[in-house]
């Protein structure tokens, strides 16, 4: 096994990845969610690319990073070839992760509405109590009119976003240490911060995988991350608030399109 460390020999690819994500967002044309007969377009192609690049890369980063050793866990790979292999896997996942995250970030800059729909609202606690109370079998609770994302998901998004930003900033600083003389006092803060953010990411991704993919009631939403669509019935039951927003928006669009265009003025 070669001792070639890609973090050493092709480090420029990591710096390229964020700009590739930003450029891709600039040339991507998005399709907004809409009702299409008996189904609802929930995620366009760009959303699926954002999600899977970020998600799969996160999983690979966590596995390869923890294998090399996190603050609170022993290194699972011993020195030499296994460490270099783990580092090179980590490198590939870093490139994909940065592309996906910056693709999402740039898409969000282009449409701040998409960020707003990820952020918790004033109904966060009340809706979460009702939703999960009902899920746990307490009949006194009724399903709240959740919007596109459940309020509990939006609260988890805050933690995921904070962890992602910390991991990226500290990761870039660790990367810079390969080329520049970063003081050891800075590195002694950066590395533990990277590791703690990793643990936060684990705390996010494990429940996310359970609630989004393993829980049977979530299988329609899991499928939508591949097909882009959910059924109208599913949207009515689980995301009534979101469906109402889509219906209102589509009614307004239809009204705009049927408005008569003013006749052109004739020259005197």
């Amino acid at each position: 096994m070669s001792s070639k460390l890609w973090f050493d020999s092709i480090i420029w690819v990591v710096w390229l990845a964020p700009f590739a994500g930003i450029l891709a967002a600039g040339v991507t044309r998005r399709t907004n969610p809409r009702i299409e007969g008996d189904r609802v377009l929930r995620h366009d192609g760009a959303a699926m690319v954002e999600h899977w690049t970020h998600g799969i890369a996160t999983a690979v980063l966590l596995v390869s990073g923890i294998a090399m050793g996190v603050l609170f866990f022993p290194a699972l790979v011993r020195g030499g070839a296994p460490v270099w292999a783990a580092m090179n896997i980590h490198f590939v996942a870093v490139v994909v992760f940065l592309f996906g995250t910056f693709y999402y970030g740039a898409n969000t800059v282009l449409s701040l509405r998409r960020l707003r729909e990820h952020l918790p609202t004033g109904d966060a606690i009340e809706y979460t109590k009702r939703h999960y109370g009902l899920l746990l079998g307490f009949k006194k609770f009724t399903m709240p009119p959740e919007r596109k994302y459940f309020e509990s998901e939006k609260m988890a998004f805050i933690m995921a976003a904070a962890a992602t930003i910390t991991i990226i900033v500290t990761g870039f600083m660790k990367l810079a240490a390969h080329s520049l003389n970063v003081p050891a006092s800075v590195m002694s803060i950066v590395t533990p911060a990277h590791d703690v953010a990793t643990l936060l990411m684990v705390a996010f991704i494990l429940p996310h995988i359970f609630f989004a993919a393993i829980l049977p009631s979530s299988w329609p939403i899991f499928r939508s991350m591949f097909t882009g669509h959910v059924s109208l019935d599913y949207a009515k039951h689980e995301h009534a608030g979101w469906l109402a927003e889509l219906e209102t928006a589509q009614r307004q669009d239809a009204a705009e399109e049927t408005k008569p265009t003013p006749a052109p003025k004739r020259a005197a």
Partner: protein
Amino acid sequence: MTDKKITGGVTPSGSDEPGTFSRRQFVTGLGGVGFGAILGGMLVKSIILPDQVFAIPASGGYLLVDTKKCAGCSSCMLACSLTHHGETNLSLSRIQITQDSFGKFPDDITISQCRQCPYPSCVAACPTGAMHADAKTGVRTVDEAKCIGCERCVNACPFTPSRALWNFEEKHAEKCDLCLGAKYWDEVGGPDGKRACEEVCSMHAIKFTKELPNQSATGYETDLRTGTAWNDYGFNGAVKANGR
């Protein structure tokens, strides 16, 4: 992907007005410029610019060891771990004495000290600059906070056993630093100070020099016996019996 509404399309001033550009144009431009700058920089660096040359200063000093004087007491190993780690642990010593129980003098004892190589392979192999030549003294040493534990330095050392060691307790590389970083010792270490192994060796089998010894592929032979009281001990019979 169609775009019924161009999301985030138009700045308040309007994208159609001359001299203005939309958020989308800004994002596309930022991504394109960054992408191009990095690719362009890489092309320039790899094709147009000459290869970089890094000059590593020579070390400020070298340990000389004479295996024929060594008694194998391992005091040097204990002193090394004690001064650097505050505990006596042979596995944490940066100088290693190995004894072949079936070997005959003078091949029964090997002293594996760091040779402070003029071209330090360990420094060249380190991806983060943790293994480096100290700016003031030239001593090849590890900045522990920067070590990422890849152990390329351990692999790169041309000698066996590797003079760069893995600290299994603190999870970083370490090596002989001529006691520059001996934090559990009251004495000043380094090329201009003292070295714990040299101070503690009762056989005076370890010496220090600031002159670069003649190196070979297998290291360098040192004679610390000639011209000393060793000559009066009458060990020549043993040496002659082994044909040396």
